[in-house]
């Protein structure tokens, strides 16, 4: 290798270069040409050595041919080009000075050997590689088969073990395979149940209309899947309800091939839902539809365009008494019997009876002629109730009051209709019961207003919608203002200013009178005190505040009153609490005790509306009162001229009685000068009424008082 390029090694290298250049374009290795050349040098040397050996052994050629294959020169063109190179250049570059003839003969023999070696190696390699790829394919197939088997086993396990029913059918509807869960749902295998294996014969009268259209679309390949709720017949003829999902299975080319059905048994859930729905819409005791279902029907009737409805609202008369005297069990049996009878009254299409609760029932008719029908219905109900009911050996006669509402749909809400019926029923009841009344919108309105005021009261107090007007109290002797009565007003946002008669009874009823009364007291005391502070020389001015019976019973009365007076700083003697005579009728010591406490502190107590309550005159002595306020009914007789002599006598007597008990007398409702004059002559001490002043704001009062004080 170290000799010059003209030396034997140099010439060998040159041959290898030529050789590599010849075959490089047809090799398929990743070697570069110089790298191939390096590979060829030892081969060239082998060829040269063989060529020039003393004993010629052409086998070296075979090794060279095989070596070419070993470095991946498998293209037959490699051999061809190799033989060309050897033929043309081996002797030239590697023959040395040997006999030309002999060398060419040897070269030819070597070429034969190279070709044979190349072919043999190529053949072996080809066979080996074919063998390898075949084995790899077999191995891969085996692997895939195992994996497929595992996969199949998994799917089989899923199919068989699924809680959901699975069935596979062809596109003609032939059920090919179903799993155990599906068999259980159907109550047995398809084969031994006599059931058709044809899917499209699995119809049921309750099938939704679109079910079979969806099915056809799916098997035609127009739909990939659908999901429906579908009933089937079980083997024993009972119904199986399912959530059914059907999917289309396509082959690898995308053509529809099978249909896959997944079924979930919803029978029990469905029954449960139906039962829950029934329970939610029916009364447990009587089995009648309940309020919920009744409202659904009523709302539906009211939403029917052009429709009419008739409604009877029935409340049994005196049911509570029966319940209380015979016990709840008897009461319940009575209700059941009444329910049965009611149901027999409303059997026509469009009629229904429901129990709203307690002993309240409703009957609804939506027939063609509700105006007539509802009257007849009410009549039937009353006459049916008239038949005595036998319970626990007793004959009970149950009566009922019915409120009827009839009208066109679309005007009122269900709640409004029911409220109107309720109000009307109460009208029937207060008229003595055992009758029906027709709803009257005007009467409804009044009741509704009353109801509305009651519910608005608490908020009204919070929003300061109340205010006080003062009506002066005048000394009859000299016409000077001695004080004023505080009268509460409600400035209602919708109804305007309302007098106490409109809302005090409501406040009494709801108990709101206590906080309202406290507010009136506080406000009146505060304004009186302010006036006193501003006009110290104007003399004493008394303030009268009304106490309702409810306040009288309230345990905080004394404490509240004392607290108010002390906090604001008003003398107790400045305050007069007015209590109605009727509130004190039959009052025991417990009730009188707070009043006594207040009187002992110096608060005046006036007996209001005196003469209307049939009071025990002897009782007057016991009461801690200092003043009687004569009811206006006595003074009304004196408005005329001449005055009614009886009234005059009565007033005269009362005044005498009062004065003998050391009580002063105040008269209300003085409207004329003649009245005032007469009352003064009869000895009354104080008067109030329009003749002097109407109730008004404090300013108005204090002008009168100041005029009086200065004039």
């Amino acid at each position: 290798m170290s000799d010059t390029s003209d030396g034997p090694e140099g010439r060998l290298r040159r041959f290898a270069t030529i050789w590599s250049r010849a075959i490089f374009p047809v090799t398929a290795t990743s070697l570069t040409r110089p790298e191939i050349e390096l590979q060829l040098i030892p081969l060239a040397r082998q060829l040269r050595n063989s060529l020039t050996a003393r004993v010629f052994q052409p086998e070296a050629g075979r090794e060279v041919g095989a070596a070419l294959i070993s470095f991946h020169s498998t293209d037959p063109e490699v051999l061809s080009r190799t033989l060309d190179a050897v033929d043309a250049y081996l002797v030239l570059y590697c023959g040395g000075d040997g006999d030309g003839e002999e060398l060419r003969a040897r070269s030819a023999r070597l070429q034969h050997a190279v070709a044979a070696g190349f072919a043999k190696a190529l053949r072996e390699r080809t066979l080996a590689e074919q063998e390898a790829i075949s084995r790899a394919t077999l191995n891969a197939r085996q692997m895939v088969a195992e994996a497929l088997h595992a996969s199949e086993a998994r799917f089989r396990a899923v199919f068989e073990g699924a809680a959901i029913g699975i069935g596979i059918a062809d596109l003609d509807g032939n059920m090919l395979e179903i799993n155990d869960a599906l068999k259980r749902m159907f109550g047995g295998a398809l084969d031994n149940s006599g059931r058709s294996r044809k899917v499209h014969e699995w119809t049921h009268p309750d099938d939704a209309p679109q079910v079979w259209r969806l099915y056809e679309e799916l098997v035609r390949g127009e739909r990939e899947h659908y999901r429906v709720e579908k009933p089937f017949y079980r083997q024993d003829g009972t119904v199986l309800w399912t959530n059914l999902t059907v999917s289309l299975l396509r082959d690898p080319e995308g053509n529809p091939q099978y249909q896959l059905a997944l079924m979930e048994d919803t029978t029990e859930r469905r029954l449960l839902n139906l039962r829950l729905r029934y329970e939610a819409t029916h009364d447990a005791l009587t089995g009648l539809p309940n309020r919920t279902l009744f409202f659904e029907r009523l709302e539906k009737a009211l939403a029917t365009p052009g429709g009419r409805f008739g409604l009877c609202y029935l409340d049994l008369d005196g049911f509570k008494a029966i319940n209380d005297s015979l016990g709840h069990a008897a009461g319940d049996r009575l209700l059941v019997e009444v329910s049965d009878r009611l149901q027999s009254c409303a059997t026509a299409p469009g009629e229904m009876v429901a129990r709203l609760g307690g002993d309240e029932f409703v009957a609804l008719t939506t027939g063609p002629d509700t105006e007539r029908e509802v009257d007849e219905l009410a009549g039937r109900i009353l006459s049916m109730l008239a038949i005595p009911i036998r319970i626990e050996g007793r004959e009970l006669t149950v009566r009922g009051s019915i409120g009827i509402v009839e009208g066109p749909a679309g005007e009122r809400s269900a709640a409004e209709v029911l409220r109107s019926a309720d109000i009307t029923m109460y009208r029937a009841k207060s008229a003595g019961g055992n009758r029906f009344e027709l709803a009257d919108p005007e009467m409804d309105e009044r009741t509704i207003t009353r109801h509305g005021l009651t519910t608005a009261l608490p908020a009204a107090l919070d929003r300061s919608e109340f205010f006080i007007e003062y009506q002066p109290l005048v000394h009859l002797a000299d016409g000077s203002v001695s004080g004023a009565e505080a009268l509460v007003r409600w400035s209602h946002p919708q109804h305007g200013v309302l007098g106490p008669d409109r809302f005090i009874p409501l406040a009494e009823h709801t108990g709101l009178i206590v906080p309202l009364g406290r507010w009136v007291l506080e406000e009146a005391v505060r304004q009186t005190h302010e006036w006193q502070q501003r006009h110290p020389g104007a003399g004493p001015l008394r303030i009268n505040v009304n106490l309702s019976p409810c306040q009288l019973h309230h345990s905080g009365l004394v404490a509240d009153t004392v607290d108010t007076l002390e906090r604001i700083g008003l003398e107790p003697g400045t305050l007069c609490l007015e209590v109605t005579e009727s509130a004190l009728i039959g009052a025991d010591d417990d009730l009188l005790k707070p009043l006594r406490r207040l009187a002992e502190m110096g608060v005046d107590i006036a007996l209001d509306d005196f003469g209307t309550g049939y009071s025990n005159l002897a009782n007057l002595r016991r009461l801690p009162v200092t003043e009687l306020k004569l009811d206006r009914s006595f003074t009304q007789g004196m408005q005329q001229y001449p005055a009614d002599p009886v009234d005059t006598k009565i007033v005269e007597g009362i005044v005498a009685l009062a004065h003998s008990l050391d009580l002063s007398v105040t008269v209300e409702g003085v409207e004329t000068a003649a009245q005032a004059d007469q009352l003064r002559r009869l000895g009354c001490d104080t008067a109030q009424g329009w003749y002097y002043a109407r109730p008004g704001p404090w300013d108005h009062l204090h002008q009168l008082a100041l005029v009086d004080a200065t004039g």
Partner: protein
Amino acid sequence: MDRPSWAPHGIDISTPSVSRMYDFYLGGSHNFEVDREAARKAMEFLPGMPKIMQANRAFMRRAVRYAVSEGITQFLDIGSGIPTFGNVHEVAQGENPDARIVYVDHDPVAVAHSEVVLEGNDGAGIVAADLRKPEDILGSSAVESHLDLERPVALLLVALLHFVEDADDPYGAVAELGAVLAPGSLIVLTHAAYDGIPLPEQQAGGAVGVYKNIRNPLIMRSRDEIARFFEGYEMVEPGLVSMAEWRPDTPPEDEDPYAFSGFAGVGRKA
């Protein structure tokens, strides 16, 4: 419905396989007549197919040697096919006997063959997985046992991505694989393109049609599209070039004209 990962594809040797065709182009006999028939058909349009494949192998060899010279001893070769000669483990372990290689292929035959070839080679393993599911590759036991992802890895995607359609999001898959590689890792890829093919595009397109017919479409991408695979990597000199021009050992002028087809490049993760 997607095929579950544990349900393998069937083996159908009546359908040509791109890895066996590749072997045929390279003078191997790991192939069947269907493969050869398809390959011959492709060669009718693109006679230089074997030279392109040879250039691919030569580029890969140079790239692997480059990686080893940069100190990388871990290789993840996806789409390894049927190793006829000059495979990554031969080159890498030739340079550094400690080099570790994981091959990935989704062709069960290629996997089975590799298993035989790699028998007794502790430094190399094969995973049956698909580039389109990188999590299958990264989660494989071969990757876990052979590669230390805390250290740089050479990710080889040689003559692979042009078999992945855009619908299968090859960019996403490459990004997902690249995301787990340690800094200093290399991404090595070649990709078919009409650029550099010494034929009219229409004629070369005939070969593309052959692949389409065997349901293994060949996606020719533009240079820009191929460059996008290297987003987030810095290109190793000389950048994205034809295979013959990437760090050649011998003057490129000596190369076959087909060796200039398509693009090759190596990127380094910062």
